[in-house]
């Protein structure tokens, strides 16, 4: 009874497309066969070297032969190409499994006497019923190669000893070292001191910058929204300006304004008879500066958000409170504040996560400086991300950078997933319809 189904399954396991040919789906079968031929050719040429590469990361360093340097294996190139081949292999295996399933299903249909779809009908079927999956393949391929592959690569690096000065290809080889990098980061004095110091400042920064911009934005929003204030639109437009200027420009401009020697800020302070402050060169004042400048950049967004929330609070709540004789402050505390907090809580968490990763604010303004002599390649205002940047692009301590990156990721991911799972757009999305 299951003759066609079993035959088609076995044939398609033997080679992609045979089952389809057996089911008289000739165009589909030929396409599958061609796909297998091309893939097979590719894998025969590459697969052996891939497995060798991923296990050994290369065996021959650059060496001197008859007075000439001869290139050996470049571990990192080997790692990347192996990774790419493995991704292709994964795609191929998925395609193969789908091919077997397809042949089996069509065979089963034939056993039951159903008509087999011709090629045009198959395409039509996919577009009508498997539309989302078919549609998603295009972005998925892009994401696979430009996001997922690099991330896997980065995670792998954390388990190697890829770092200057001893393990930089192509001159030298890189090896797998297991969890040594992580151990060094948290336990080896030179690294752990920097790590905990930078981590502490990152958290202080994230809390302070989120709180200051959020409540600053709320104050400004309430200020503009007061009864009796004229030209509300004008005030809003002026105060939104810092948000509209690209950060790369505004922060670089700020760096010049806070310049201790020539900048206008100190110039004004001196004009009023005060001493200028070392805004960017003293560890403490540099921290103050980044927080203040970040308020300038961040308050407008919070202001916009909270102004949006304010318009949604029902007026009758306030009227009822007035009837009960509530003062202005009481109205704020009992009605306005809870409503704002309730509505913007998910955004608050997102902003907190964003601030942990706020590369621009630090990098463009202070570049992590002033230099801290106790730290490994980090300055007093460096966040984990900017430290990571220095470790990668300046110091080429790739393995350490990857370990730091994984830790940042774990912090941010847990925060964001927590907040996102609580939002309506995830939970009850079918309720809106």
């Amino acid at each position, binding site marked *: 009874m299951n003759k066609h189904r079993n035959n088609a399954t076995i044939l398609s396991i033997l080679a992609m497309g045979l089952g389809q040919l057996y089911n008289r789906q000739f165009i589909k079968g030929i396409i599958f066969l061609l796909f297998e031929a091309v893939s097979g050719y590719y894998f025969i040429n590459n697969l052996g070297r891939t497995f060798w590469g991923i296990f050994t990361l290369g065996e021959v360093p650059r060496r001197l032969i008859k007075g000439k340097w001869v290139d050996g294996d470049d571990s990192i190139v080997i790692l990347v*190409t192996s990774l790419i081949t493995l991704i292709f292999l994964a795609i191929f295996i998925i395609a193969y499994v789908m091919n077997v399933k397809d042949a089996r299903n069509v065979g089963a249909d034939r056993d039951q006497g159903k008509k087999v779809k011709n090629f045009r009908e198959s395409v039509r079927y996919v*577009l009508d019923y498997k539309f989302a999956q078919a549609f998603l393949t295009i972005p998925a391929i892009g994401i696979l190669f430009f996001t997922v592959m690099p991330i896997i690569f980065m995670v792998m690096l954390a388990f190697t000893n890829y770092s200057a000065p001893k393990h930089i290809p192509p001159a030298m080889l890189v090896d797998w070292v297991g969890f040594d990098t992580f151990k060094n980061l948290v336990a080896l004095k030179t690294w752990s001191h920097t790590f905990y110091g930078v981590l502490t400042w990152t958290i202080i920064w994230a809390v302070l910058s989120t709180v200051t911009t959020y409540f600053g934005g709320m104050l400004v929003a309430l200020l503009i929204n*007061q009864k009796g204030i004229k030209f509300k639109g004008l005030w809003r437009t*002026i105060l939104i300006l810092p948000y509209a200027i690209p950060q790369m*420009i505004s922060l670089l401009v700020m760096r010049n304004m806070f310049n201790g020697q020539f900048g206008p800020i100190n110039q004004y302070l001196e004009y009023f008879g005060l001493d200028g402050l070392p805004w960017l060169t003293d560890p403490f004042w540099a921290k103050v500066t980044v927080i203040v400048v970040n308020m300038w950049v961040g308050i*407008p967004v919070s202001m916009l958000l909270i102004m949006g929330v304010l318009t949604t609070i029902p007026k009758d709540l306030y009227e009822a409170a007035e009837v009960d004789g509530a003062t202005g402050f009481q109205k704020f505390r009992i009605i306005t504040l809870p409503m704002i907090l309730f509505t913007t809580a998910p955004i608050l968490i997102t902003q907190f996560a964003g601030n942990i990763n706020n590369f621009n604010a630090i990098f463009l303004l202070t570049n992590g400086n002033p230099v801290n002599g106790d730290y490994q390649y980090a300055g007093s205002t460096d966040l984990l991300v900017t430290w990571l940047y220095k470790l990668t692009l300046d110091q080429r301590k790739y393995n350490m950078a*990857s370990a730091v990156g994984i830790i940042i990721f774990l912090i941010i991911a847990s925060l*964001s997933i927590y907040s996102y799972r609580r939002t309506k*757009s995830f939970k009850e999305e079918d309720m809106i319809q």
Partner: protein
Amino acid sequence: MSARKIGNAVRLTSSYIVLVILAICALYPALWVILGSLRPGRALYSKSLFPEALTFEHYRELFTSHTILFGQWYMNTLKVSIFSTILGVFLTLLTSYAFSRFRFRGRKNGLSVLLVLGMFPGFMSMVAIFLLLLSMNMLDSHWALVIVYAAGAPIGGTFIAKGFLDTIPRSLDEAARIDGASNFTVFWKIILPLSKPMLTYIGLTQFVGPWVDFIFARLVLRSKENWTVAVGMWDLVNTNTNSNFTLFAAGAVLIAVPITILFMFLQRLLVDGLTSGASKG
């Protein structure tokens, strides 16, 4: 006058004073850099905010200098921006349409994966992308930038776009389907026209990217004539800020003005975009 009225007047006056101070804080840096770009000489230091003489010399220099190919960089950036916007918006829309309108196996996990991927520090993946581009022989090419920017677009934009698409009533699609429309027809004739505000938002954020990315672009674009403005400005700042401040200011104005105007015009959309993904907890 009653005590209440006086209290009110005091409240309003002090509010206006605070608002004026805030407005000065908001406007001052922009004003300072614009005036700085018109100041003769090269120095950061100036005796007063308003220069004694105004000059357009620095703007002219940006376009005529042999070391600063600003005009060329501007066109490069425009090219990268436009193409990566078109491609990126298209990919984002595909992804969010699929996630918003179809129910399929692995959908929720797919969304979570997308969310998680967006949380890796971007330049961590730069080394790998760099090696990938190197092996594809695509370094120093604008198309490499376009592809990488566009491929990354769905990761940031899908949630916002999906949040927006969720608000378009599904009864519209169903009505069209009953009339025999295919999935493509529904997409082109119903979803696309209704999602214009969202498209503008995603497009704008995507468009701005190349103008401000000085890290990845600097890694990929090797030769000076291929640089984008962000790379050029970063180079200018890093090599000699104090001695060349006015030139930097002029460049900054030229980059910031168009983007700022775009943002100001679209500020309402920005708020919608910011909130539609997340709010209504």
